[in-house]
């Protein structure tokens, strides 16, 4: 049966030679390699739940009177977008679970991408020859952020509407082209009536198509370059050691995917997310307070709060205060991340091919830089909810902002120094442990019967 299928396919597409290699392809077993898979599976969950929602959602700004089963809002004037989201949540069988799963999947998607990139960063997996895939991956992160933002704004509720209003203002703050950019995306000055339709198109077609394209590219490059691996017994720059794709890896990975779907189902069933009925429909003269966006936009929100109230003037033109924190800061942050492989190369002057990963303690300055970047993002994200914190701990918000401004500069520096020192000491200890042991030369038997000397772990 299988044989007939293989032959049938090979007669037509000549797949046998590829498949014979592919089935035996090695997949390293380290746990950190699952992070990328988690992103992939949460994206699959997004597609599956999104198809369901896409058929039921009505991306229209046409207003009507709410008559659904959620009593407190009956009689309210809402948009069709809001109304259909309410219908999905209250009147559609399994609608609420699937809608909430979709939202949780989005949060997980971004979180998994970020941790996956952290793994890549701290182990130096972005180095030659993998710079291209680092750039593709970072672009995927940006697209995921865009998909999250557009999706979460679709229901036309008060919370997301406020977020869109801020987004539009930040777009307008861009010099020269800002007002046009805002008008071109939203269809006119905010709030333009076409907004929901445009967001919908962007969210269900434009961004998913780009994401699918880039995921394919990402994985094609991964397939071609083969995995990186941590140094260890039998693992060299010239091989990859791991489980074969078929059946071991495929089963384990499928199991991981199913487990993620199960977790998302629990989250979707039990943990309420984005309760638009609590926020109410969007109205430009109201605001949901305190308005907390999804976690992955918190850093932009925080940056806007920390930015100094300084407006610039250039040849009789205005550069509003939100330009620096809202546009320049994200551009710089992502610029540094995009260029990181090349920045590092220009510092280390190391252009060799690296298929073996660094342990984070082995390269103190890189690890320290990564931790510093995380520290900065942490502070800026925390500042995004400073009003809530001020209320909880009874501190004047102005003070809290000063604290965050200081921390935003000081913590990355401190984090850098501490991490650097820590890595150096850990590294020194690790070297000592290794040097202390009697040196034994190990031989590894290669598959074709020869022997090769075990590569010493790279501690230089």
């Amino acid at each position: 049966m299988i044989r007939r299928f293989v032959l049938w396919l090979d007669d037509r597409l000549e797949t046998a030679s590829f498949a014979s290699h592919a089935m035996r392809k090695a997949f390293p077993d380290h746990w950190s390699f699952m992070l990328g898979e988690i992103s992939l599976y949460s994206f699959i969950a997004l597609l599956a739940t999104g198809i369901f929602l896409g058929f039921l959602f009505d991306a229209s700004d046409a207003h009507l009177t709410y008559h659904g089963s959620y009593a407190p809002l009956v009689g309210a004037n809402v948009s069709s977008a809001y109304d259909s989201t309410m219908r999905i949540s209250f009147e559609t069988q399994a609608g609420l679970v699937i809608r909430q799963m979709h939202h949780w999947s989005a949060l997980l998607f971004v979180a998994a991408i970020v941790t996956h990139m952290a793994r890549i960063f701290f182990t130096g997996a972005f180095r030659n020859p993998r710079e291209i895939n680092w750039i593709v991956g970072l672009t995927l992160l940006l697209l995921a952020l865009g998909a999250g933002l557009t999706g979460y704004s679709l229901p036309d509720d008060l919370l997301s509407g406020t977020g869109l209003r801020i987004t539009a203002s930040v777009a307008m703050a861009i010099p020269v082209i800002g007002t046009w950019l805002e008008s071109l995306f939203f269809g006119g000055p905010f709030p333009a009536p076409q907004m929901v339709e445009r967001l919908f198109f962007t969210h269900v077609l434009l961004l998913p198509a780009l994401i699918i394209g880039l995921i394919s590219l990402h994985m094609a490059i991964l397939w071609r370059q083969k995995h990186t691996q941590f140094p260890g017994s039998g693992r060299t720059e010239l091989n990859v050691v791991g489980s074969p794709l078929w059946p071991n890896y495929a089963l384990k990975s499928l199991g991981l995917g199913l487990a993620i779907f199960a977790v998302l189902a629990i989250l979707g069933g039990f943990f309420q997310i984005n309760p638009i009925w609590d926020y109410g429909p969007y109205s430009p003269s109201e605001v949901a307070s305190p308005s907390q966006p999804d976690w992955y936009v918190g850093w932009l929100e925080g940056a806007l709060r920390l930015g100094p109230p300084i407006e610039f003037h250039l040849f009789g033109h205005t550069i509003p205060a939100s330009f620096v924190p809202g546009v320049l800061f994200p551009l710089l942050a992502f610029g540094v991340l995009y260029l990181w492989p090349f920045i590092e190369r220009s510092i280390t002057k190391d252009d060799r091919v690296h298929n073996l990963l660094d342990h984070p303690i082995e390269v103190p300055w890189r690890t320290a830089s990564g931790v510093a970047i995380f520290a900065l993002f942490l502070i800026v994200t925390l500042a995004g909810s400073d009003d809530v914190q001020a209320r909880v701990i009874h501190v004047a918000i102005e003070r809290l902002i000063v604290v965050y401004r200081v921390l935003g500069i000081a913590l990355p520096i401190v984090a850098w120094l501490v991490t650097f020192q820590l890595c150096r000491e850990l590294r020194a200890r690790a070297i000592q442990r290794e040097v202390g042991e009697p040196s034994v030369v190990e031989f590894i038997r290669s598959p074709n019967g020869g022997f090769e000397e075990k590569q010493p772990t790279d501690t230089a």
Partner: protein
Amino acid sequence: MNAPSRFSWLQRIAALALLVSMLGSVGFAVGYATGVSAQFQGLALAIALGGLAVAVVIWGKFLVRQERVIDLREPTSSSWERNDATHALEAGTEQIGRRHLLSRLLGSAFAVFGIAALFTIRSLGQNPYPQLFRTKWTPGARLVRENGQPIHREDLVADEIVTVFPEGFVGAADSQTVLLRLAPGILQPASDRADWSPSDYVAYSKVCTHAGCPVGLYRSAEHQLLCPCHQSMFDVLDRAKPIAGPATRPLPQLPLRIAADGYLRAQSDFHEPIGPGFWERGA
């Protein structure tokens, strides 16, 4: 535990997990048909998927032979091929480039086409400028509440605040305005705005000059308007200048007058663009 019994033990767990999974699926289907809570549906789905996950992972980790394979990384292209590729590309490019005039024309034709194509972008949005520089307020427009009711001189007491719109434009985002009535005498208007605030009524644009949120909170003790988005504060007694937070500009003030019939009206539109700043706004 010896190997065979361990395997049969694991196999039993996997089988059990698959049975549980089927139960979950059936539960989901039954729940769907009878209409149950989201919690039940989520749980049933999780059991269905989780059971599958357990079985598949056990299978992959224990019930198939654990193998280690070693892939060798061979360089995929030889230096000869690399040279060849370079030459092919160079030779082809050189052939195109040799026809100087034509190749330059080709580049220009593409560029001109690109610029022409750019024009279509213009259709995507309307010209934002006129709308950014004016609102729906016109001289004589009555101030009305969100329910359309006009506001009479006697309607508000001291420290009361309402959101108002120009009559006929309730809900217009750019024209939303906060109307406050202050305690008699505490407002000392600047000379250029001396007649803008009759009977202690004062009106400011409700659109925050930072990023456009509605400035909805009024702290009557300090006479400050507070924007809930990034906590900018505006001093109602002094031209609504920002005194804290990221906003850099005062909220534009709407000049008011009280007509003979006692209703509040606008003297004119705001004298400057409302809301967040932008490039063309002028210094």
